[in-house]
């Protein structure tokens, strides 16, 4: 089920972002955030549909607050797109699948 979605931690974050061969969408989330739960199925669907074009990863801000702080995340869900290890786009707030795909379109080559 979650085979397509990478779980990021403080330990694997930099290596995963740097070595990815596609853009990486990192979803910063937490258990207590309602809108985060609502977008989870949406990004999992996108992970399956865009396999090979986009890598999807999730970072729990409760467990790995240091990474959230490094990218100045102050609201969740925040989704940051990384290309070649660099943050290139930040999407703050939950949205539906159509809207998310529209926002991601520039990064899907």
């Amino acid at each position, binding site marked *: 089920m979650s085979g397509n979605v990478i779980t990021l931690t403080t330990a694997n974050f930099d290596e995963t972002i740097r070595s990815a061969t596609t853009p990486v969408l990192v979803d910063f989330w937490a258990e207590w*955030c309602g*809108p*985060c739960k*609502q977008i989870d199925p*949406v990004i999992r669907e996108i992970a399956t549909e865009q396999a090979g074009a986009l890598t999807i990863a999730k970072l729990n801000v409760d467990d790995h607050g240091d990474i959230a702080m490094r990218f100045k*995340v102050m*609201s969740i*869900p*925040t989704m940051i797109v990384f290309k070649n290890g660099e943050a290139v786009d930040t999407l703050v707030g939950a949205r539906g699948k159509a809207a998310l795909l529209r926002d991601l379109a520039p990064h899907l080559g």
Partner: protein
Amino acid sequence: MTTHPHRNVIIIGSGPAGLTAAIYVARASLSPLLIEGEPSSTSDQPGGQLMLTTEVENFPGFPEGVQGPELMQRMRDQAARFGAEFLTEKATKIDFSSHPHRVWVRDDEYTADVVIASTGARSLMLGLENEARLIGHGVSTCATCDGFFFRGQEIVVVGGGDSAIEEASFLTKFASKVTIIHRRDKFRASKIMQERALANPKISVRWNAQVTRIVGEAKLSAIEVTDTVTGATDTMNIGGLFVAIGHRPNTDVFAGVLDMDDNGYLVTQPGSSRTNVPGVFACGDVQDHTYRQAITAAGSGCMAAIDAERWLEHHHGSANK
């Protein structure tokens, strides 16, 4: 364009009103389609305003209280149990001018004999410059989502109703100090919530005051506050700004078709959920700016379901022609 099988009932919106209507309609074997909305960080989302709250203490049947999102999940499960079908999208267009009623989700068309409008209300913003740009960077629409990031900081909550007081109380778990800014000299919130908030040593109140400017480049740094009595202004350096100044009904999609009052709330005929269009019923906060409680929304959702069932009984012959 895709046209889908005709339904007895389409329900638009999935807060306590829409889900209660769905439970009743589904249980009457009328297999409703619930167009429940799409994910959002505002209250305009599946499950509605309760998705952004924490503890609900006054919903009957939960003596220990229940988390808002959990209550909504339970209502949804209950509607699903009786066969309600869910579409996690927003209704984008309607046509109630002929029978059957038509509802679109983008290019997909759905038809039904009866439509129940339960699209609820969403939070108002201040409408100040920089506000929209700084959402997620110090300005927040969701205290339960973002409170965590303001640990040890001084923050401001704007508003004087139940949601403002609830947010302020919740945010004291994280913030070092919470100031409630309210434009009047007393709160609209219920007495028990006011007393609890005012007794909290981390909460202070600035009465007769309005936020008139939001300042910040990459993130919020300060706000300007104007005293509504004297007109004097001052600056508060804060890390977070939470806006809870009231609600606006989600009725844009019904504009020009369903009767509304001056504030955009749908008008229903007294003692019923009937709108001005036969076979279209309204329930919940979209038609109620007075009570606005989960339980009153649920109650009016039940009314709409019963009105819908009776309407279908009476019109069954002609409805299927």
